[in-house]
């Protein structure tokens, strides 16, 4: 396309956050284009929440920068930004309706009609005090507020925790609807299936470090498993150890499995030379890819 490339909606560059001796986020760089749904995956304590907090100015980074549309975070940007922490910041002594009213006063773009629609969607009784709502209903209220301000940027930390499967699907639908309307959505989830459905981009954090990032569809196309069986125990193949396209090797009895980046053809050729009884190439879904990335497979 001609002209200047548009600045990414969110650009995190060399972000590091230390708490004492612990490095929660380690030299993280991520660029998120406008209109993307960006899924952040990682095991507990991987640094997802810290990343969100640093990005939104709720925690001071030890190093690094975060830019929105090419500019550093400024107060006026909060008008069109929604952040939903894993435990939404709600007051027990206020009703849902009072929270809606408070949000309406703080956000000029707040859409009251939308808030009503979304409350119905989640079966939420706005007259109830927050203290009387279940955890799932509190999450739902957080989501109603987050989506009713018609944000350009949405940052959702585990948005569907505590929700039933039907309401979880609503959350995905809302994210998709927002992105189709040009908003940029960033969310974390432990449910890889949600990321696989709704996200076009994904990043995997592990112990504060970025271990994998890319377009979900491209990762699926690029990451393969080459599986081979042998007459006896699977041999050690030296050429595989140094092979840059091999991410991970698994040897179990007569079975050899190589998790590879790329078509797998090169690795097949290397394995063929060791006279296996069979070789095949398997696809990987996002869960497989995630587990290899965090070394859990």
């Amino acid at each position: 396309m001609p002209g200047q490339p548009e600045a990414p909606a969110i650009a995190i560059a060399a972000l590091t956050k230390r708490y004492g001796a612990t490095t929660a986020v380690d030299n993280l760089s991520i660029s998120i284009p406008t209109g993307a749904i960006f899924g952040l995956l990682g095991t507990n304590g991987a640094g997802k929440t810290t990343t969100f907090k640093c990005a939104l100015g709720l925690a001071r980074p030890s190093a690094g920068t975060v830019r929105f549309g090419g500019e550093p975070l400024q107060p006026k940007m909060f008008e069109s930004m929604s952040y939903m922490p894993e435990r939404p910041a709600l007051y027990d002594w206020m009703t849902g309706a009072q929270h809606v009213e408070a949000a309406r006063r703080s956000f000029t773009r707040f859409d009251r009609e939308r808030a009503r629609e979304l409350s119905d969607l989640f079966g939420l009784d706005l007259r109830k005090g927050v203290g009387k709502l279940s955890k799932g209903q509190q999450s739902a209220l957080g989501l109603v507020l987050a989506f009713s301000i018609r944000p350009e940027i949405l940052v959702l930390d585990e948005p569907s925790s505590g929700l039933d499967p039907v309401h979880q699907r609503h959350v995905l639908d809302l994210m998709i609807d927002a992105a189709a309307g040009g908003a940029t959505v960033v969310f974390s989830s432990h449910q890889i299936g949600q990321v696989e459905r709704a996200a076009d981009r994904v990043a995997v954090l592990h112990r504060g470090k970025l271990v994998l990032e890319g377009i979900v569809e491209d990762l699926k196309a690029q990451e393969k498993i080459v599986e081979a069986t042998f007459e006896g125990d699977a041999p050690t193949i030296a050429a595989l150890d140094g092979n840059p396209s091999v991410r991970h090797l698994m040897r179990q009895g007569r079975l050899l499995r190589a998790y590879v980046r790329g078509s797998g053809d090169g690795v097949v050729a290397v394995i063929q030379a060791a006279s296996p009884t069979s070789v095949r190439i398997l696809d990987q879904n996002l869960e497989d890819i995630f587990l290899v990335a965090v070394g859990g497979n």
Partner: protein
Amino acid sequence: MPAIFTVDPHTGVPIYLQLIEQVKRSVALGVLAPGERLPTVKQLATDLTINPNTVARAYRELERDGVIETSVGRGSFVRQNGAGDAAAAALSDVASSAVDAAVREAKSLGLKKSQLREIFHHALERWYSSDGDVKEREN
């Protein structure tokens, strides 16, 4: 509009490729007629609960392959001319890659060429009549 396409996000096959194949199949089989309007990107993304950019990517490739055309503001349509041919050609690619995968699998299981030839022969006998036409479909 009923969702005529379905996708399985939880496989290793990219969703946009699943969509492309289904649109081509629908066009080649006449389920989608020339000139027929496709759901908008937003509509299809919402119907299937998948990412809008993924749908847009499928549509871009379908346009490049001459199966659909998109006019700004009006939406995407099955092409009037040549969409069927383009889709049929693409389906022949789908068939070849399916056969290729089957042959690769047979080879990986240690079958000899002659054994595979026999299997293939039986399959042809089963599904095609002797003059080479497609047998009536058994559903």
